[in-house]
C-alpha cells in the first residue's frame, strides 16, 4: 500500500477543504477503500477520515414524513432500525443480503453509495482497464465476462455496480444530500451514478471535495411497504455479489396495481431503474402475465457484453419472481431469509 497523509477533520467544511486537493480521498469505514489500496488499485496521497464528523450518524423522520439517513449510519444499524425496516422493507432486505455481518457492521450508508465495481480486471493492476487507467483498454471485453453488464455498457467498459442497497433505493426515488465547495445540493440517486460511455473513470456526478452527508427517502415510498421485496441471485448461498438482483415494490388495491417500482442490480454500471416496465404494471392486474410483460419491457434494450447472454433471461425471470413475491406481501419478518432465496418462494421446493 502506498503511504498517505492521514487527516481527521472535525467539521464538514474542514473535511471538504482537505478532500478537495488532488489525490485526496474520503475514508469512512474503509471496507472497500482499504481493500482497493492494498491491491494498489486506488493510491490516494491523503485520506480524510470523516468518521468523527458530528451529526452524520442519525436516522430521523423528515417534516414531510420521509426519512433522512446520515451518511455515517452503519448498514446493519439501518437494516435493524424497526421503523425503517417496517417502512422500507425492500431496502432492509437488500442491506442484509449484502456482504457479511462483519462488513455490514462497519460499512456506512454513504460509502455503499460509492462502492466500486468488482470487475476482476479493474482489480488486477496487470490488466488493461479504462476505469482504473483511462485509455489503456478493457481486458474484460474479451476476457472472463459472464458476470458483466447487459445494460448501459460501452466498448470502453462493461463493469457493473455491485451495490445491493442502491437497487431498492433507486426504485424508491432516494435523494442524496451532498456538501461541497459551493455549498449543499441534492441529487436523485438515479442521477448520481454515470454510465461508462467513453469516460468509465467518471463513476458519479461528484466533484473533488464533494461529501455525501445524507440520503433521503420520500414519504410516498412508504405506500409500497406492504408489497416490497428484494431478491438477489448469487453463485453461492451467502456472502457473494449479485449475478442479478431485483427490487420490486407494488401498491396493490383490490388485485390491481395502483403504482409500481422496479429496479435491477448486477446488470449495469449503475443501479438500473426500469421505468418503462413500471408503466406496464400500473393499472394492470397483479398477476403473472403482467409480470412477464414488465420483464420483457425491462430487458428490451439489453444485449450481452460477452459470455453473459444468460443474464438477460435470468434478469427477466428474477423480475417475475420478485414481483410475484412482492404481490404475495411483505413477510412479517425482514429479511425473510436472505441466505436462501429458495426457502421463501411458494411453489419452489426448499
Amino acid at each position: 500500500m502506498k503511504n498517505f497523509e492521514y487527516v481527521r477533520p472535525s467539521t464538514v467544511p474542514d473535511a471538504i477543504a482537505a478532500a478537495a486537493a488532488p489525490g485526496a480521498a474520503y475514508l469512512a469505514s474503509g471496507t472497500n477503500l482499504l481493500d482497493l489500496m492494498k491491491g494498489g488499485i486506488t493510491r490516494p496521497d491523503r485520506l480524510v477520515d470523516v468518521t468523527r464528523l458530528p451529526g452524520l450518524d442519525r436516522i430521523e423522520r423528515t417534516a414531510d414524513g420521509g426519512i433522512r439517513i446520515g451518511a455515517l449510519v452503519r448498514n446493519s444499524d439501518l437494516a435493524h432500525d424497526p421503523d425503517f425496516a417496517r417502512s422500507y422493507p425492500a431496502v432492509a432486505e437488500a442491506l442484509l443480503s449484502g456482504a457479511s455481518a462483519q462488513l455490514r457492521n462497519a460499512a456506512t450508508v454513504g460509502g455503499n453509495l460509492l462502492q466500486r465495481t468488482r470487475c476482476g480486471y479493474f482489480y488486477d493492476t496487470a490488466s488493461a482497464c479504462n476505469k482504473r487507467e483511462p485509455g489503456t483498454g478493457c481486458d474484460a471485453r474479451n476476457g472472463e465476462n459472464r458476470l458483466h453488464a447487459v445494460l448501459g455498457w460501452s466498448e470502453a467498459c462493461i463493469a457493473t455496480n455491485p451495490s445491493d442497497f442502491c437497487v431498492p433505493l433507486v426504485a424508491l426515488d432516494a435523494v442524496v444530500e451532498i456538501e461541497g465547495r459551493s455549498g449543499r445540493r441534492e441529487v436523485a440517486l438515479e442521477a448520481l451514478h454515470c454510465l461508462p460511455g467513453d469516460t468509465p473513470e467518471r463513476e458519479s456526478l461528484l466533484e473533488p471535495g464533494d461529501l455525501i452527508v445524507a440520503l433521503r427517502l420520500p414519504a410516498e415510498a412508504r405506500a409500497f411497504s406492504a408489497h416490497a421485496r428484494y431478491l438477489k441471485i448469487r453463485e453461492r448461498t451467502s456472502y457473494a455479489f449479485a449475478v442479478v438482483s431485483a427490487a420490486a415494490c407494488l401498491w396493490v388495491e383490490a388485485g390491481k396495481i395502483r403504482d409500481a417500482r422496479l429496479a435491477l442490480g448486477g446488470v449495469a454500471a449503475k443501479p438500473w431503474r426500469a421505468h418503462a416496465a413500471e408503466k406496464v404494471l400500473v393499472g394492470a392486474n397483479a398477476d403473472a402475465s403482467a409480470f412477464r410483460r414488465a420483464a420483457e419491457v425491462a430487458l428490451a434494450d439489453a444485449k450481452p457484453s460477452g459470455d453473459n447472454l444468460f443474464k438477460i433471461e435470468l434478469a427477466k425471470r428474477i423480475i417475475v419472481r420478485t414481483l410475484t413475491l412482492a404481490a404475495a406481501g411483505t413477510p412479517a419478518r425482514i429479511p425473510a431469509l436472505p441466505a436462501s432465496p429458495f426457502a421463501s418462494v411458494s411453489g419452489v421446493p426448499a
Partner: protein
Amino acid sequence: MNLSISLTVNGVRRDVELSDPRVTLLDLLRERLDLTGTKKGCDRGQCGACTVLIDGRRINSCLALAVSHDGADILTIEGVARGDQLHPVQAAFIAHDGFQCGFCTPGQIMSAIGLIGEAQAGNDPERIRECMSGNLCRCGAYAGITEAVLDAQQTLATANQRRSA
C-alpha cells in the same frame, strides 16, 4: 498529525505510537501488542479470520485502519475466557468439534460472540449459517460450528435468565 493512539484492548488501556498511518488494527494487535490469537487469513475482508469486536460489534480488523479507531474498546480472542474458565462459545466449539486445523477458530468464535449479541438469528440453524457466512473454514467444520453456536447461545441465555431471576 499525531499518530499516537490509545485503545482499550481486552479491558487494558494500551497507548501506541504509530510510525505509519497504514497500520491496520489487525497488524497492530499482532505485531505491536503481541496478541497473535487474531489471525491474518486473506487480509482483504473475505475470510473473517481477523474478526474482533470493536465497541461490542464484530468487524474485520484487516479492513480497519488502526489510527481511525483511536479510543475504541477492542475485544479479541485473548480476552474472552476468565482465567482458566473458557467462554461458553469456546467450550461449545470444543464440545461440538467446531474446528479441525484451528486457524479460522479465533475469528469464528469472535464472530459467534458478536452474532449472539446481535440476537437476530434465534435458534434457526439456517439463520445461524447465514449470520456466520463471513467466516470461512477451509477444513469444512461448518456443521460443528453451527451446532456450537446454537449450543453456546442456549447456555448464555440460560445463564442470563438465572442471573436475572
